[in-house]
């Protein structure tokens, strides 16, 4: 006797993973009207998506990402003037406020552009990870020129539990150091590195196909 739900409307507590995610994590249509995500992070994720799935969204065989969930977290920059002459120094923090319980962290990487071509020069960048109580500090710089320009470095040991709600994560004291190699281009800030969390969602996970129970021929 119930009238059909209009498109997009959902029950209060959906039990299916897709609908629960839609209810809890999806932006409202007003947020979308404010402007879709754009820029380098979106471009990176679209490339990752095209490698992992075909045009119909079917996961490609042999191109597995090794997990069923990858979350991109953008940095929040600290206040202050990052430019000093030809040098750029920007401390960053990454926060994920509420990590769903069913999503188990496998590893975390930071993705950055070590070299940004400008009109008459290059901006060369490295990342500095501050030491924690368990891990020494590190300076990240790829040994070879990375394919597609992006470099990815494992920062799992540097990820700490956040102070906020249960399941929150934080990566503090990541510092971008960049310098113009030569020339006198205008001050173009490097795009901020972003954090990728490789997660295993035990609800929507890539469980191996259930073996078909043996049945006798009829």
């Amino acid at each position, binding site marked *: 006797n119930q009238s059909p739900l*209009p*498109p*997009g409307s959902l029950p209060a507590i959906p039990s299916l*993973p*897709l609908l629960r*995610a*839609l209810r809890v*994590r*999806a*932006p*409202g*249509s007003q*947020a*979308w009207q404010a402007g*879709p*995500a754009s820029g380098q*992070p*979106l471009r990176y*994720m*679209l490339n*990752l*998506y095209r490698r*992992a*799935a075909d*045009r*119909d*969204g*079917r*996961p490609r065989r042999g191109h597995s*990402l090794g997990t*069923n*969930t*990858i*979350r*991109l*977290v*953008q940095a929040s920059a600290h206040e202050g003037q990052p430019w000093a002459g030809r040098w750029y120094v920007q401390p960053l923090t990454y926060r*994920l*406020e509420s990590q769903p319980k069913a999503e188990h962290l496998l590893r975390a990487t930071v993705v950055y552009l070590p070299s940004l071509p400008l009109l008459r020069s290059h901006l060369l960048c490295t990342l500095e990870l501050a030491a924690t109580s368990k891990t020494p500090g590190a300076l990240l710089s790829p040994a070879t020129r990375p394919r597609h320009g992006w470099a990815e470095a494992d920062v799992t040991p540097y990820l700490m539990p956040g102070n906020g709600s249960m399941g929150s994560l934080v990566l503090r004291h990541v510092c971008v150091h960049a310098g113009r190699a030569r020339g006198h281009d205008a001050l173009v800030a490097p795009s901020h590195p972003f954090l990728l969390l490789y997660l295993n*969602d035990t609800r*929507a*996970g*890539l*469980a191996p196909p259930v073996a078909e129970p043996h*049945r006798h*021929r*009829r």
Partner: protein
Amino acid sequence: DTGTLAHDLPSYLREQGGEKSDCSLRPFPISFAQLGWDHWIIAPHRYNPRYCKGICPRLLRYDYHAPNHAVVQSFVHQLVDANVPRPSCVPYRYSPISVLMIERDGGILYKEYENMIAESCTCR
């Protein structure tokens, strides 16, 4: 009498419009905009969940993957009481879909959801 049933099969198929009305997988391409989710899911651009439709024949072929109970229910419908419905034509096997989503906090999420595309049908 299995001999009679087998003899019935051609006329049964004619009566139901032949194999075209048999339980089978049908395409149904949609967009996430039609579902009202296009502000959230940005890839893929097209989605074909497909669906199963059609009559479950009196004699269930092996490729329907029907359990023994479905065979018995089919016989009950045909031979004992038509109020007991014929087995239903429903999806049997599914494949997952990968989606790219935008979240409220501006994050971007890649996720694989299981059982999003019907791959074959059965009579249950």
